[in-house]
């Protein structure tokens, strides 16, 4: 399931739904990303997440479908917020449930790695210096590249 929303979400409740009533689930892996107070040396007062409505949902659905193809999963979940957030706020939740822990872990990490390079979101950080757009990180591109390399090895 995917959701793109302005509202906060209840981590525990959302993750519980991945195994509720399904006694075939042996493991659930979940990751949540939060707004950090510091960006390098700069103290952040707020962050605004812009996205591309329509394409965002499409991109997330494709990422989820790809994970379902790669691993034997029971359920997957991606929730991504947009709008103005403050340090400590939740930005994103990805989770996967499976009979086995390896699949749950791998799929969960895949979801966040791919989302970071494929989903059309942009962060505008506010600090004393003003507002500035966050630059994409090489490490995120590399994290996705690791999955592509693994594909070639297989």
């Amino acid at each position, binding site marked *: 399931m995917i959701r793109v929303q302005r509202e906060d979400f209840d981590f525990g409740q959302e993750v519980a739904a991945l195994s509720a009533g399904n006694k075939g689930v042996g493991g659930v892996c979940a990751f949540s990303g939060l707004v950090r107070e510091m960006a390098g040396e700069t103290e952040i007062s707020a962050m605004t997440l812009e996205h591309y409505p*329509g394409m965002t949902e499409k991109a997330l659905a494709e990422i989820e479908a790809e994970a379902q193809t790669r691993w034997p999963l029971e359920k997957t979940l991606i929730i991504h917020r947009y709008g103005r957030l403050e340090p400590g706020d939740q930005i994103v939740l990805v989770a996967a449930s499976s009979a086995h822990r390896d699949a749950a872990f791998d799929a969960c990490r895949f979801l966040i790695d791919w989302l970071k390079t494929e989903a059309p979101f942009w962060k505008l950080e506010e600090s004393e210096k003003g507002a500035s757009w*966050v630059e994409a990180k090489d490490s995120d591109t590399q994290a996705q590249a690791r999955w592509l390399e693994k594909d070639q090895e297989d």
Partner: protein
Amino acid sequence: MKILYFSWVRDKTGVSNEELTPPVSVTTVESLIDWLKEQSAGHAQAFTDVSVIRAAVNQEHVKLQHPVGPDDEVAFFPPVTGG
């Protein structure tokens, strides 16, 4: 053709989306960019360095060589930073 701009690309063009009719010579994302740069100083500034520009056609990531047509929705933005 519907054109959308996001993040600092929009800040520079000064418009979030516009309905435009490029000439028939515009057949790829790349040639569309060249044409857009002539539309305003802001557009020219937004596309100064195309190596930092990413594009989507009909809401799918594409390379700059990708074809575009009059009924397409084309979006320009910097590399994504969600998650």
